[in-house]
Structures are given as structure tokens and as C-alpha cells.
């Protein structure tokens, strides 16, 4: 059993659902969402970049989704397949293991992020290589694999254009699909000019020229790489087939040219049969980049003599997924295929960007996935603030290609955040004070008169803070109009007299 120690922390007993380890703080930021969001909102360049990018992608998505007359049926099938996977996950994983092994792959199991990183580091060391090329992968972002490889003296080279931009500028990703969505073309040119040793100093900010600069920068590395590392979009249990969906061809390079391929997947990335891909290969590209199909999708099953890596390792990682799976509704968050449609339509994400969420899983889905992966440690856990990063407008559900009921999960996680209030916070104290004041007419009238003092604070007609217990927490996200000179009850009494 997991045991609640009273402060929200759980001890782990063998074999029971367990929250994620987060050795490099990629699932939990350092400050609550409202604090980070305030800063992001003040960055007008960021808001311009995000507004432009999300408007572009929303229009493209709407166009290609509109072409598909059975879109709703596909969404329902996607939802059903994923729900089926959750109900049979252990058996499907054993089937996948058997299929991959039968085709010459080696399957490894990792309880958490540290274990996944250790397995990969050891595998790379065995090859004798001190450099790896990587396909963009959320799973290895989550574990902080690049940091772990770096600590072991192994250089990890990100090859996806946006991930390269993030890596070169020592930044963090802010979107599933386009980790550098917060950067515009001229910022990207500046990063390339500063960080790419052989770049043409006359580089312009024309996107085509920027893409060419990335091609030149990475080409030699691709052609000489001996170890590739990837994530997984879909792993097919009955055939042992792994698929990676991409655009640039960097994925094909990493999956094809090295001698050794190491693939890390969260255990939920599985589908039962090859034909299930007919659903997801329609849903994902249209929801994600707004294309009928992404330029390249690679699939492979184990090792193929004479083609591609002759050593293939698949790392199956839990890292908190068992904790999510244990929740009857919450497990829907594991249905996510990382298309990022919910980010692109979210009025909150569009204004704050991904960094404000702290976790590498941002946006509406991140707001329900991150707190479930990490668990909520107590009222001050920054991930407890994520479920409130929403107006519950429901746009995320409409856009979700596998019909995850994100608004419902947000409400549920808000309840979980409230339950984590094992001890009273400042806001609780303020609420209790308000309850006391409102409990009797006499006390309420005294409080009303005290409020009039607020006029002194509210020169602009708004009150932004007041002294007193809990007040700063309350006013952290709100202001209120200055109270009138006269209370209603005073006015009523005066009116009676005249």
C-alpha cells in the first residue's frame, strides 16, 4: 500500500501505484502558476509570438479537420482504443515485450526517471560512444536524460529544429510540438548567429534560410552518429512495431543511420494492434501541425538485418503513470497523444505560454497530467495551482482528438488540490475570518464600517492589497473595487429617517 504520511507525501510499498520521480525538476516548476503567469503576461514580445503562432495553427487545423467527414467517429474510436489500452495495460505491455524480443530488440523496464536515465547511460557507455543524436521526445525531456548523459560525459545533440533552438539558447521547451514556439524568426536568427560555430554571418531571418542553417549544422553529425535516441508515438503490442511521427527527416536520420538505437517510452504509448494506427495516423497530424499527414512517419519492428540499427533497445517507463492509471477518471490523461491541439486553442496558454506551467507538459492537458504524475504534496505544492490555470471554457475538449474530458479532470484536480490542504493556508484563515464576520448582523455591520477604510487604499478606485492574515494570498490574483462611502444598511437606515 501507499501510505499517506499526513503531509501529502506518500511512502512507497513495493508493487503499488507510485508517483513520478523528478530528478531534474521537469514536472514541477519553482513557483505557482499565477506568479509565473504574471511575468509572462508582462512580456509583450512573448504574447505577440504566441498569438501569431497559435492563430496560424488553429486556422490550419480547422481547415484539415473540416475535410474529414467522419472526424467525430475517428475521435470516438481514438477514445475507445485508449480506454481499452488502460483496462489491459499490463497484459499489452507483456505482449509488446514478447513481440519486440522475438524480432531482435531488447526490452528494459524502468520504475522511474532515474532508472530510465541509468539504463540509457549504461547502454550508451557500452557502445563506447561519447555522443548521441536525439529525436525530440517528451519522455526523455521528462526524465532529464540530457542532463544525466551530460553528467556521464556524453553529449546529447537535439536534432529537431525547435528542440535545437531550445538547446542552443539553454532554454526550456514551452510546447509539445514546437518547443520554441515562444521564439520568433528574428530571435531564432540571433540564437543561430551566436551559437552555431560555422554559421554564415549573413544569415537572414527567412524561415527557409534558418532551416538550411540547421541542416548544415547537423548533417555531419547525422552521417557519423553511432547512437540514436528516440521516443515513441505509438507502440503496437501485437507486432512489436514502434512508430515515430515527424516532419524534418531528423527522426529518420536518428532512427536509420546509427548502429544502436535506444527508444524510451512511457508505458501508456501502446496500442493493441497494427490496424489501430489507422485511427491515430488520421487524428494526430491533422490535430497537431494541421496537415493531412506529416512529412515522415517511420515504423520498425525490432531489428532488420541489413537495414538500420543492428542493436535496438526499448525502455518501458512507469514514472508516475501507475499513479494516474489508478484513478478511474484521471487515467484519461494517459490517453493523450501529445498533439498539442488543446494548447493551441486554450485562451490561457495563448497568453501565458508554456513556461508558466513549470512542467514540460504545459497547457490544459499538462494542467491535469503533471499534478497526477507527481501527486500533490500539500497546499504549497506549485502543481496544485495548475488545475486553476483555466476558465473551464471547454475548448480543449472540443479540440482533443481522443476526447479527453479535460474540463472535468481540471475540476477533479482542483478537488485534489483542496484535499491536499492538510493544514490551513493563509487563504483558509481569511475565509474563516470572513465566515465569522458574516455570522451575525452586528459583526457584519462592524466589518462593513471597517471596509470603508479601504477607500484610503483604493486611490484608483480599485483595492490591490490590504493588510491582515491571508489578505496577500487573496489579492495575489484579484483586486476589488473600493467600497462606497456609505454601506447599504446605513443608506437604508438614513432613508427610513427622511
Amino acid at each position, binding site marked *: 500500500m501507499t501510505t499517506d504520511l499526513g503531509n501529502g507525501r506518500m511512502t512507497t510499498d513495493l*508493487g503499488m501505484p507510485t508517483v513520478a520521480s523528478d530528478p531534474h525538476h521537469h514536472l514541477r516548476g519553482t513557483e505557482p502558476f499565477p506568479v509565473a503567469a504574471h511575468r509572462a503576461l508582462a512580456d509583450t514580445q512573448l504574447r505577440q509570438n504566441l498569438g*501569431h503562432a497559435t492563430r*496560424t495553427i488553429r486556422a490550419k487545423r480547422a481547415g484539415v479537420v473540416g475535410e474529414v467527414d467522419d472526424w467525430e467517429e475517428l475521435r470516438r474510436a481514438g477514445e475507445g482504443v485508449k480506454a481499452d489500452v488502460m483496462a489491459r495495460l499490463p497484459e499489452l505491455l507483456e505482449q509488446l515485450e514478447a513481440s519486440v524480443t522475438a524480432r531482435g530488440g531488447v526490452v528494459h*523496464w524502468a520504475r522511474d526517471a532515474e532508472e530510465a536515465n541509468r539504463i540509457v547511460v549504461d547502454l550508451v557507455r557500452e557502445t563506447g560512444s561519447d555522443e548521441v543524436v536525439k529525436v525530440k521526445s517528451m519522455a526523455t525531456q521528462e526524465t532529464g536524460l540530457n542532463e544525466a548523459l551530460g553528467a556521464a560525459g556524453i553529449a546529447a545533440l537535439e536534432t529537431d529544429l525547435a528542440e535545437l533552438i531550445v538547446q542552443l539558447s539553454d532554454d526550456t521547451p514551452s510546447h509539445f510540438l514546437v518547443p520554441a514556439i515562444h521564439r520568433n524568426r528574428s530571435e531564432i536568427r540571433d540564437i543561430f548567429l551566436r551559437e552555431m560555430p560555422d554559421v554564415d554571418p549573413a544569415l537572414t531571418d527567412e524561415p527557409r534560410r534558418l532551416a538550411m542553417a540547421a*541542416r548544415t549544422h547537423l548533417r555531419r553529425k547525422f552521417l557519423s552518429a553511432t547512437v540514436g535516441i528516440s521516443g515513441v508515438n505509438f507502440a503496437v503490442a501485437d507486432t512489436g512495431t514502434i512508430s515515430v511521427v515527424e516532419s524534418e527527416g531528423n527522426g529518420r536520420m536518428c532512427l536509420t543511420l546509427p548502429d544502436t538505437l535506444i527508444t524510451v517510452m512511457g508505458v501508456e504509448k501502446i496500442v493493441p494492434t497494427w490496424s489501430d494506427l489507422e485511427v491515430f495516423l488520421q487524428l494526430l497530424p491533422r490535430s497537431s501541425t494541421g496537415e493531412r499527414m506529416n512529412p515522415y512517419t517511420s515504423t*520498425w519492428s525490432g531489428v532488420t538485418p541489413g537495414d538500420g540499427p543492428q542493436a535496438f533497445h526499448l525502455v518501458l517507463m512507469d514514472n508516475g503513470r501507475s499513479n494516474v492509471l*489508478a484513478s*478511474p477518471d484521471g487515467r484519461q490523461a494517459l490517453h493523450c497523444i501529445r498533439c498539442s491541439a488543446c494548447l493551441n486553442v486554450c485562451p490561457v496558454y495563448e497568453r501565458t505560454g508554456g513556461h508558466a506551467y513549470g512542467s514540460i507538459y504545459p497547457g490544459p492537458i499538462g494542467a491535469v497530467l503533471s499534478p497526477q504524475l507527481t501527486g500533490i504534496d500539500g497546499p504549497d505544492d506549485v502543481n496544485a495551482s495548475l488545475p486553476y490555470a483555466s476558465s473551464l471554457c471547454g475548448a480543449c475538449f472540443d479540440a482533443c482528438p481522443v476526447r479527453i474530458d479535460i474540463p472535468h479532470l481540471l475540476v477533479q484536480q482542483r478537488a485534489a488540490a483542496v484535499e491536499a490542504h492538510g493544514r490551513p493556508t493563509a487563504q483558509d484563515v481569511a475565509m474563516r475570518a470572513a465566515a465569522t464576520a458574516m455570522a451575525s448582523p452586528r459583526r457584519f455591520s462592524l466589518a462593513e464600517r471597517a471596509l470603508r477604510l479601504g477607500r484610503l487604499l483604493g486611490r484608483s478606485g480599485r483595492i490591490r492589497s490590504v493588510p491582515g492574515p491571508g489578505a496577500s494570498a487573496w489579492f495575489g490574483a484579484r483586486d476589488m473595487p473600493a467600497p462606497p462611502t456609505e454601506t447599504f444598511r446605513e443608506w437604508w437606515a438614513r432613508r427610513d429617517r427622511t
Partner: protein
Amino acid sequence: MTARDEVLARLRAARDAGGATPPDVPRGYRRTGAFAPGSAEVVARLDETLTDYRATVHRVADEDDVSEAVARVLEEAGATTFVAPPGLPARWVAAVTARVRPDEPPLSVAELDRVDAVVTGAAVAIADTGTFVLDALAPDQGRRAISLVPDHHVCVVRADAVVSSVPEALARLDPDGPLTFVSGPSATSDIELDRVEGVHGPRRLDVVLVGPM
């Protein structure tokens, strides 16, 4: 307890706690597309969707005309060498003047990098999405590296390989060998979410489409 046993035990406990009854998966979506496989309509739609994503399509009515189209494409691109998978039909390249580099024995990556182009067939093509699929185990398509490293890919797609929809395509494919789904030349949407063609994969993509016009 090994990591394997522990992860599986955790997932069993979690699965049982959250619900272990598999739902019926609703399969109300269309498994066959609007046009019959190999029909003039499906080929015409493929022409449109390929072109939409910046592949250059060359229509020929008959397989006898393939080699002239391939020759013209390579010549226009200034290609003097091309790599051919072991089972590329000789008649597809009979009129080509560029020098063939057979991938038999397999060329090294450095050699592939010096070849101007590659000519392959395709296992299946999807008209709805502008996609063709390469099967590494098919003799006229060859191992994955040959259609990846050269900067110019010429793909010959016969009408009998063209289907309307994704489900029809997957039903024809064998996932045992590596497959590559290609939809247009290499591209990226990573700069302001605008699509730009030409990154790491072949920057030039020509499709010779054989079939009813």
C-alpha cells in the same frame, strides 16, 4: 523484485483500482475511402494532394513511359548519379543517362551522401493525404538509408498501389519490415508554425504517377 516485476505489479494494482473492464471500441469511422483503389479518380486526387505539399508530380499513362519521365526529371535537376535499390525494374530507368550506383553491395553513408538522387518504387500511396509508403523489404524500394541521404528522391507510384484512405493503406502493409510514410519533401513548422520545405530529408521530391489520366 526486478524492475519488470515491480512495474507490472504497480500497473496491475492501478488498473484494477481504476477499472479493468475493457470498453467496446466504437468503429463507426470509414474504412474505405471515396474512390476505388487504382481508379482514375483516386489517382487524380493523389496528384492534387501530393502537389499541395510540394511534391512535383509527373503523370504518365503507361509503365513504358516511366523511364523517359525519370530521365527528364534527373536531367532537369542536373543529377549525374543515382542510387537504385536492388530490385528496381530496369525498364523504369532504361532511358536515364545519369550513372546508376546499385546498392549492392550496400553503399556506405559517405557514398550515399555523394550520390545526387535515388529512384524507388512505393508499396502503397494514400490519395486522401498525399502520402506514399516505402517498404524496406520490397526489392524496388530498398533499405531506408538510400531514400534518406541523397537530396533528391524520385518515386514511381503505379495506379494499382493507390488507395483513398489511411485504413485501406494500412491493411495492405506488412509492419514486419521498416516502413517510411512520406508526404511531401522534408519540411518543418518549427518557425512560427509556418510550413517550410526542405530540412534534413530529401529536399526535392518528384513522383512519377503511372496510371489512367
